[in-house]
């Protein structure tokens, strides 16, 4: 499924930066998340140990990924869960459609799933005459308004109370306008309760899949996920193949990291662990459980020893919360399913550098994300790597469409920079020249962009090299 053909990042950014309400909403929300995370991880040393543990667990899983997936499949199958594999999002969509058609089902209730966004599942099902209702409150709100999520954890964070009240009033029949949060919740609860009751099939994502026992772990606060995976007679779970972990014992530390990083909670309201469909004698739970394992570029990412760290991600969203860029442009500007720092490293690898490589430039490499990532993905390092791949066309390159940014101007500019900085006499001459003419440089190209928001710096008449020489400081 092609995401966003004709995506214009520059335009998106411009629009977002001018949107005062958007910036206000995000500034408030992200500030809140940052504080919450500080409060839930107060001890620096303990947090470090926990993050090291999380990183080790994910690295271990990735180092055995195919074996663990095979083990997961074997355990799940033995327990009665039907496992399907999908190389592409199109295939994954077909799996879902087939299951729905096998049950003559036209109504699906969905728990929150970023993989299902990757699949573009709702649109696909709609084209096939199937109603897919989002039941997570945030997803429910944006579905009503025909929008995409703007954050991995809180999809409607770009909206404030007024905007949500307006959406409910306009899009849900017989709903008065109210900004009272309790009332808005009650409206959502009432509307969705009927959907749960009537649902023929329920769909969910997977936070962690345990290979040791064939168990799917899901976390949530609202109870909609449990509703989707308990009430309807059929449950479909969709997961990215990197979500598998080796042992049940790996779950508690990752859980602590996930809930702490995502929402600043010690634990979510529910931690739901599913190992089989309804057994003989049991009175409820789905009679059929399906697990769709999606690749969509992940297996290629695994092949690169450095970039595979991208797959350590547990989708907590904390990198978004701490990113000064994300806070100012919001999630939609990124144009792809995954926004923020994780999106900047993931999307170019999955979609290719031509379409999504520009995202890797939208970072000042401040490292705020790396500082908080619960599984210690070195995001700034991977951004540099992607930038390098964009300009390099060599057999050692592994990212799709590497070298697509290669151009004469940049190559010459950096070669020139290299020459000036490896030949000290040239460097000295250059400095002397800039000391004289520096302030007279016409504002073209990069300087023009600099001057949009700043006065340019003044070149010193005498460089440090000269001052030092004059002071008689030793040279060696």
């Amino acid at each position: 499924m092609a995401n966003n053909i004709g995506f214009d990042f520059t335009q998106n950014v411009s629009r977002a930066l001018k949107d005062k309400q958007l910036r206000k909403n995000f500034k408030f929300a992200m500030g809140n998340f940052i504080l919450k995370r500080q409060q839930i991880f107060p001890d620096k040393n303990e947090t470090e140990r926990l993050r090291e543990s999380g990183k080790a667990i994910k690295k271990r899983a990735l180092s055995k990924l195919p074996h663990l997936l095979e083990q997961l499949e074997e355990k799940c199958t033995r327990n009665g869960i039907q496992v399907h594999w999908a190389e592409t999002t199109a295939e994954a969509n077909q799996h879902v459609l087939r299951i729905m058609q096998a049950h003559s089902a036209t109504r699906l209730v969905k728990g929150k799933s970023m993989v299902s966004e990757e699949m573009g599942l709702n649109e696909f099902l709609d084209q096939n005459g199937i109603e897919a209702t989002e039941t997570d409150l945030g997803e429910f709100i944006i579905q009503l308004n025909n929008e995409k999520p703007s954050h991995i954890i809180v999809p409607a964070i770009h909206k404030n109370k007024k905007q949500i009240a307006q959406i409910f009033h306009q899009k849900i029949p017989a709903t008065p306008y109210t900004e009272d949060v309790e009332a808005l919740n009650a409206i959502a609860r009432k509307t969705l309760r009927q959907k749960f009751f009537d649902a023929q099939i329920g769909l969910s994502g997977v936070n962690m899949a345990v290979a040791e026992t064939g168990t799917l772990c899901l976390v949530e606060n609202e109870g909609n996920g449990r509703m989707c995976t308990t009430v309807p007679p059929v449950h479909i779970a969709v997961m990215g193949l990197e979500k598998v972990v080796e042992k049940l014992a790996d779950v508690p530390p990752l859980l602590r990291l996930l809930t702490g990083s995502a929402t600043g909670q010690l634990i979510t309201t529910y931690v739901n662990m599913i190992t089989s469909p309804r057994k003989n004698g049991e009175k409820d739970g789905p009679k059929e459980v399906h697990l769709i394992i999606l690749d969509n570029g992940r297996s290629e990412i695994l092949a690169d020893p450095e970039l595979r760290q991208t797959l350590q991600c547990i989708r907590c969203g904390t990198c978004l919360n701490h990113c000064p860029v994300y806070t100012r442009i919001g999630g939609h500007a990124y144009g792809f399913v995954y926004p923020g720092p994780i999106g900047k490293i993931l999307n170019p690898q999955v979609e290719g550098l031509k379409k999504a490589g520009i995202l890797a430039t939208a970072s000042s490499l401040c490292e705020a994300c790396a500082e908080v990532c619960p599984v210690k993905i070195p995001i700034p390092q991977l951004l540099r790597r992607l930038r390098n791949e964009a300009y390099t066309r060599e057999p050692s390159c592994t990212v799709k469409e590497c070298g697509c940014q290669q151009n004469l101007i940049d190559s010459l500019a950096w070669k020139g920079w290299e020459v000036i900085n490896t030949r000290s006499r040239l460097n000295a001459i250059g400095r002397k020249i800039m000391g004289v003419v520096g302030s007279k440089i016409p504002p073209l190209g990069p300087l023009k962009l600099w001057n949009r928001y700043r006065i340019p710096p003044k070149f010193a008449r005498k460089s440090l090299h000269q001052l030092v020489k004059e002071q008689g400081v030793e040279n060696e």
Partner: protein
Amino acid sequence: MKEYPEKPDTVYYFGTCLIDMFYPQAGMAGLNLIRREGIRVIFPQEQTCCGQPAYNSGFFKEAKKVALQQIRLFAEDYPIVVPSGSCAGMMKHHYPYLFAEDSNLDAVKRFSNRIVELSEFLVQVLKIKLEDRGRPVKVTWHSSCHALREMGVIEDSKSLIRQLKNVELVELLNENECCGFGGTFAVKQPDISGAMVADKVEDIRQTGASRLLAGDCGCLINISGAMEYQNLPVKGQHLAEFIWERIDGK
């Protein structure tokens, strides 16, 4: 826990290209603060740039060539003091990464191990004592990202400011937020960078300080340029230069 060498007799000084071009006085101030403690400072005249601009832009080959050039110039086993968190971070943490597959890796590591940022050198190694001879002034401090997150020297920098008894340090509300420089980021994503520096300037305005201090010249040219553009009469200054002024060393 970081480990620091004993007070040495001799150090190298790496000026950094931005200081060289735009803030040479800051570079001299840093050098003088070290000499003041009776230490011999060597400044290899052929030094140029740590290579970070090319590295951050994805031009690794070019960055490596420039890096290797610097490494050759600082051959003796003296600490290398750097008046910039980002250049120090580049040479300390990123050089080993850049040269990971290179035959020069050992030499690179020996170089990187000797890198010390100026604030941490003054505080942790020299245990410098400062006497403030200046008039009362209100200042605020910006934590450069790499000084904060790569080199961990912010507390050292601030402790130097706090030693000056006539200086009132008012902290920024979002002290640790990036100023938006990011090297070529400022011109590759000019509007996002502009939004970030505008917020930083607003923060500074709120403190009522008359000086903005930082340990990194990338941040300084960015923030000072923006303050001037917005007609905010606050002077942006490198910490070393400010300290040198306050202790009235001329």
